[in-house]
């Protein structure tokens, strides 16, 4: 690939040719490597050979590559064997597995034909691999061992049972996995668990069918069908669309209450919807496909170069040079495109990038939250493609010079050179939000997670490549309804199947604990029975990014998604009113009053952990390495300027004894400013001034170089910290989130903290930045305005940069004699297994100077409670900051810094306040804010709660106790009342019935578990529940039948 060729490839003004060339050269080199290693298919080989023949530079490059390879290969001796002594030792030490005492366990599942004996933990690893460890919920430890024991006994009755020691060991090994599964962030959490398991056991390969089976049984994979629909709405469709609305709401309920499936607005009388590939073969569908032309799909290039979107990573070798454009449209926009296909205008386009954002300009109207995605793949380089002229007159995609060849015609269409597909996405709510604020000037973005998967399945219709979009949701259980929107309203069988599926969803799935089920259905922490699990353990979270981000969304008239709301971060943003301790690192405070929103006499317990304040003058010296994202997307919304502003603010807070380094990264990382004393303001300012945005986002490289610089300049006696400023998504280089996280975790052990500061909206990969800071023992902030930057970075400077404790874990123990059940608000992804509270190897959150960690527990008291002794006891376990912070380098000092301390406070019932209004303002604030978060999360616990009460109480409190932040919140509450309440879960008959049924099954599961534990459940109760469930099931069937029936007759009045 010659440089001149490259130049012609990209006319996108947003990218300088340099960045593109670097990208291109890298890709070229990857292809060459693959070629040299024989990793390419015939077609690719032929292409590369043609390129080689044409280019002497490339030939030279290959020679060098081959020379390097053989040099390296020859240099390392291969004829090696273990020394005789090592061999002998090995013989002596290698005890045959069958001779080991205790757990001899046969692999499970038993259908694995070859089973060398594996330890129970290997079994565990198999299960972990399939993410089915979920089975062992975060519930208390006992049932786990019992279950495992039973399972093993079943698998091979002849085998001896595990003894106590082994049980204990398995418990310990399970702990991280349990912790992981308790996290709602499926994969991310899981990887944490895997890491721990991996210490001892490699993960045996998991057979595909098993994995599939495991996923299915948990309902973890969700298939959303891809379908085409004419989006034109008219009066005739009103009836059907109303049914769809209703079904959508039922779907939404089932899928966790926050994501109604997109409604299809079909031609009357036609096939309305289907589930699966069959839909593509419907003639009506084909007709509709015909209406979409490639030109319409192509649209025009947007702000980011497609090659920068990261669609290149992760494909099969050889396909890496095949980029893809993805565009999303609202239904209305698509309709317009169909009408005037060639008139795809910039205003109508919605742009879609890698895992996250669709940028929507001017989405108008609010018809139905349907998003269409069109994609086409084409080569940027390679092949005999002649570089096209691509002059300014053809504003095609940046890669338009590579003339796409259509895959139609002969040859079975296997040539991936050009593909297009259209898909709907289930996150319609986002689209609704977008659509509802048509007057917005800014572009908006919403999320398409893992859409890459769509490219793997394809089917050719009329020259289009289409396929199922497989959306893997992090939460369980959206398999059933995710992709379903309407039904082919014909035979009674289909209808029955539909009802059956809904009802099946409501049931406890195989191998599912009640807590798991609750999470699957509602995505919130359930009420835990204190009798079964008196301990609630979580890692401290002092972040506040979730509140800031949500505030930003709301102020733009967009409802944040459920995932973006972390209740604890809302609560932590506000002043708790608990005084900081004068000397000790922490003050622990608890108070309780009747729950303001409880319907059955619940109580609300608040636990506040407050860190000591450190005066700015007394803080430690700092050695900060800023890792600044300078990718192309940082140009949007003045993000780069905001970052520079933030940097200047920070530099302004630094003393001459502090030092600072800056690393910028886009496609590659470079050191902009080596470690420099903060007194060199001029040098620092010129480095900041020179930062410009361009290229793609290689966060991995940025962090790596950042850590190198920080490691080289590691200053004893100072706080060594890497600060990542980014808007989000890593899209080139190593984009594996888990491996980035793992390397951060590794760096932490050297004594380097990691803070993350998020900027911008949409691209902003909130979850990744939060996880990074979490793993790096640092803090995650989000700044959207210069004011917020000031608040976060200047006012809270010592909080952000002066740690007072690491690995802070909190455990609250409830007295089962006094507390029947409890639920923790928030901390869904901060759960720590109970047994790990005192396991100091388990990582937890960092707390900075003056920070507060607040936990709210809603609890139900035992009716018979005598109020003796503490109702709840809170314990906090933490480690001091890194030894190197105090200038201590020796291993003794390091060990001392790893020693954890514990503080404890008990709370007795006589300390409660009898009325909510009589409590401290800090308590009231926490409860009200927690409730707002619950509303925004569409939490099942907040269903039916009154938003009006929230507003009323907030305004009352605002009058009684002034607080700047709270004033702002009140304004937010009032101003966005309509937006928020309109997104609260719907309350129609089907939805209610479905929820009731789910609740019953959940309850039943809980009772079953209790039964196993205490053996006191009567058969009558179970029978009663069974019959009641049956009647609800019948009612749901009837209701659905009725809905569908009326949908068939458009002249009838609306159902609702």
């Amino acid at each position, binding site marked *: 690939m010659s440089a001149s060729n490259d130049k012609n490839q990209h006319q996108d003004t947003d990218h300088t040719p340099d960045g593109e060339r670097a990208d291109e050269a890298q890709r070229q080199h990857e292809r060459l490597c693959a070629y040299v290693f024989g990793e390419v298919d015939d077609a690719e080989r032929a292409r590369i050979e043609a390129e080689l023949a044409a280019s002497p530079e490339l030939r030279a490059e290959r020679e060098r590559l081959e020379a*390097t390879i053989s040099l390296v290969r020859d240099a390392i001796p291969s004829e*090696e064997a273990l020394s005789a002594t090592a061999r002998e030792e090995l013989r002596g030490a290698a005890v045959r597995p069958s001779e080991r005492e205790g757990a001899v366990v046969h692999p499970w599942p038993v259908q694995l034909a070859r089973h060398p004996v594996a330890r129970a933990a290997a079994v565990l690893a198999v299960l972990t691999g399939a993410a089915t460890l979920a089975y062992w919920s975060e519930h208390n430890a006992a049932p786990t061992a019992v279950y495992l024991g039973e399972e093993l006994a079943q698998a091979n009755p002849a085998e001896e049972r595990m003894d106590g020691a082994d049980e204990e060991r398995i418990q310990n090994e399970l702990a991280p996995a349990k912790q992981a599964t308790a996290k709602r962030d499926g994969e991310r959490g899981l990887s944490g668990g895997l890491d721990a398991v991996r210490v001892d056991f490699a993960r045996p390969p998991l057979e595909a069918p098993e994995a599939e089976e495991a996923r299915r049984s948990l309902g973890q994979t969700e298939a959303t069908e891809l379908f085409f629909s004419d989006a034109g709405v008219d009066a005739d469709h009103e009836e059907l669309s109303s049914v769809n609305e209703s079904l959508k709401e039922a779907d939404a309920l089932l899928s966790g209450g926050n994501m109604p499936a997109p409604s299809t607005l079909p031609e009357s009388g036609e096939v309305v919807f289907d589930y699966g590939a069959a839909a593509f073969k419907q003639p009506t569908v084909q007709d509709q496909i015909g209406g979409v032309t490639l030109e319409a799909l192509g649209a025009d290039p947007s702000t980011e170069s497609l090659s920068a979107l990261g669609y290149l990573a992760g494909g099969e070798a050889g396909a890496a040079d095949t980029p893809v454009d993805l565009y999303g449209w609202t239904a209305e926009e698509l309709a317009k495109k169909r009408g005037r296909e060639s008139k795809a205008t910039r205003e109508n386009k919605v742009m879609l990038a890698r895992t996250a954002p669709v940028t929507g300009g001017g989405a108008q109207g609010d018809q139905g939250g349907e998003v269409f995605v069109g994609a086409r793949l084409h080569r940027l380089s390679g092949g005999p493609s002649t570089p096209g002229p691509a002059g300014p007159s053809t504003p095609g995609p940046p890669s338009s010079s590579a003339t796409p060849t259509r895959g139609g015609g002969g040859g079975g269409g296997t040539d991936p050179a050009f593909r297009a597909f259209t898909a709907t996405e289930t996150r319609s709510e986002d689209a609704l939000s977008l659509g509802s604020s048509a007057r917005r000037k800014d572009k908006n973005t919403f999320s398409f997670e893992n859409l890459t998967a769509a490219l793997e399945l394809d089917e050719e219709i009329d020259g289009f490549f289409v396929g199922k979009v497989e959306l893997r949701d992090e939460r369980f259980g959206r398999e059933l309804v995710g992709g379903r929107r309407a039904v082919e309203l014909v035979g009674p069988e289909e209808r029955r199947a539909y009802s059956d599926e809904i009802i099946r969803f409501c049931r406890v799935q195989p191998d599912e604990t009640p807590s798991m089920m609750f999470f699957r259905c509602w995505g919130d922490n359930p009420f835990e029975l204190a009798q079964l699990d008196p301990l609630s353990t979580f890692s401290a979270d002092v972040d506040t990014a979730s509140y800031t981000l949500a505030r930003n969304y709301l102020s733009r008239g967009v409802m944040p998604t459920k995932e973006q709301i972390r209740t604890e971060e809302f609560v932590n943003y506000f002043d708790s009113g608990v005084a900081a301790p004068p000397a000790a690192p922490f003050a622990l405070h608890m108070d309780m009053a009747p729950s303001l929103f409880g319907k059955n006499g619940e109580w609300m317990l608040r636990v506040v952990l407050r860190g000591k304040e450190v005066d700015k003058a007394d803080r430690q010296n700092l050695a900060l390495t800023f890792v600044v994202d300078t990718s192309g997307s940082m140009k949007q919304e003045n993000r780069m300027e905001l970052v520079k502003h933030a940097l200047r603010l920070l530099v302004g807070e630094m003393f001459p004894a502090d030092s600072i380094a800056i690393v910028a990264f886009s496609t590659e990382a470079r050191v902009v400013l080596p470690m420099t004393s903060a007194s060199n303001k001029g040098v620092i300012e010129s480095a900041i001034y020179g930062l410009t945005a361009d290229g793609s986002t290689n966060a991995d490289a940025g962090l790596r170089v950042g850590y190198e610089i920080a490691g080289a300049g590691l200053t004893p006696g100072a706080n060594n910290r890497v600060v990542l400023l980014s808007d989000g998504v890593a899209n080139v280089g190593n984009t594996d989130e888990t*491996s980035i996280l793992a390397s951060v975790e590794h760096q932490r052990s050297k004594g380097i903290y990691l803070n993350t500061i998020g900027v911008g909206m949409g691209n902003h990969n909130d979850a990744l930045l939060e996880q990074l800071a979490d793993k790096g023992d640092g803090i995650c902030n989000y700044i959207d305005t210069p004011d917020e930057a000031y608040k976060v970075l200047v006012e809270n400077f010592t909080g952000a940069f002066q740690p007072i404790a690491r690995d802070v874990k909190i455990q609250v123990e409830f007295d089962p004699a006094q507390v029947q059940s409890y639920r923790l608000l928030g901390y869904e992804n901060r759960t720590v297994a109970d047994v790990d509270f005192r396991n100091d190897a388990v990582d937890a959150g960092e707390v900075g100077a003056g920070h507060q960690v607040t936990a709210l527990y809603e609890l139900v008291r035992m009716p018979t409670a005598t109020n003796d002794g503490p109702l709840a006891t809170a314990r906090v376990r933490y480690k001091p900051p890194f030894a190197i912070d105090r200038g201590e380098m020796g291993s003794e000092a390091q060990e001392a810094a790893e020693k954890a301390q514990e503080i404890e406070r008990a709370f007795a019932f006589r300390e409660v306040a009898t009325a909510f209004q009589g409590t401290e303002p800090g308590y009231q604030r926490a409860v009200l804010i927690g409730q707002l978060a619950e509303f925004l999360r569409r939490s099942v616990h907040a269903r039916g709660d009154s938003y009006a009460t929230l507003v009323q109480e907030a305004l009352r409190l605002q009058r009684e106790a002034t607080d700047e932040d709270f004033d702002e919140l009140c304004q937010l509450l009032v101003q966005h009342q309509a937006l928020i309440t309109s997104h609260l879960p719907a309350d129609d008959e089907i939805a209610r019935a479905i929820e009731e049924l789910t609740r019953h099954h959940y309850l039943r599961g809980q009772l079953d578990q209790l039964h196993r534990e205490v053996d006191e459940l009567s058969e009558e109760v179970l029978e009663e529940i069974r019959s009641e469930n049956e009647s609800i099931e019948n009612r749901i069937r009837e209701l659905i039948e009725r809905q569908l029936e009326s949908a068939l007759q458009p002249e009838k009045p609306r159902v609702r």
Partner: protein
Amino acid sequence: MTTDPRSQGDLLSAWCDGDAAAFDRLVSLYEARLLRHARSILGECAEYEDVVQEAFLRLAKAPPTLAATGEAEAEEAQLTSWLYKVTKNCCMDALRSNNRRKKREEEVALTEATSGGIARVEEDDTRMAVERGLQKLPLDQREVLALRLFGDRSYKEIAEITGKKIGTVGWLISVGLKALQGELASLLQPRAAGHDTTGDAQVGTLQGGM
């Protein structure tokens, strides 16, 4: 050693039934490969032999469960990838347990500081230079390259062993080789010069553009 006709899956089963010779045979089959792998990850100075010993110990104590496919090759592939993974994990443990990694990085940084150190390397120090070059690479690049260059694993197998995407593997290999190439430039020059001198001049410009 006489060749044992049994497949590796059979050997593993035999070991589980108490056949010590079978285990011995497995060790012989894998020791060279794993030693090389551990060595390229840990470097010459390290106790890579201990690491491999530990990996075999884990094989002895907690052998993997192979999915029965009925094909000896498929079972062998599973065992191979299992052993590579375990070896890597043992390497990681070794790196974690002592602060050797840090020290080594300091050493590397030192040689870098006195740049030109590599240029002075003599012919018979090639091995040292290559090992040092490898050690300078980030761990993930090093691992992937070791698997490809010494383990002769395919991209797909490497992806499976390391848990990375194939695209990422390709990228790591490319970036790692480029870095190595730069690192070993002084050793490569005489060879490359013999083949294509004009190419070299071009290279400079290409790399400069990056």
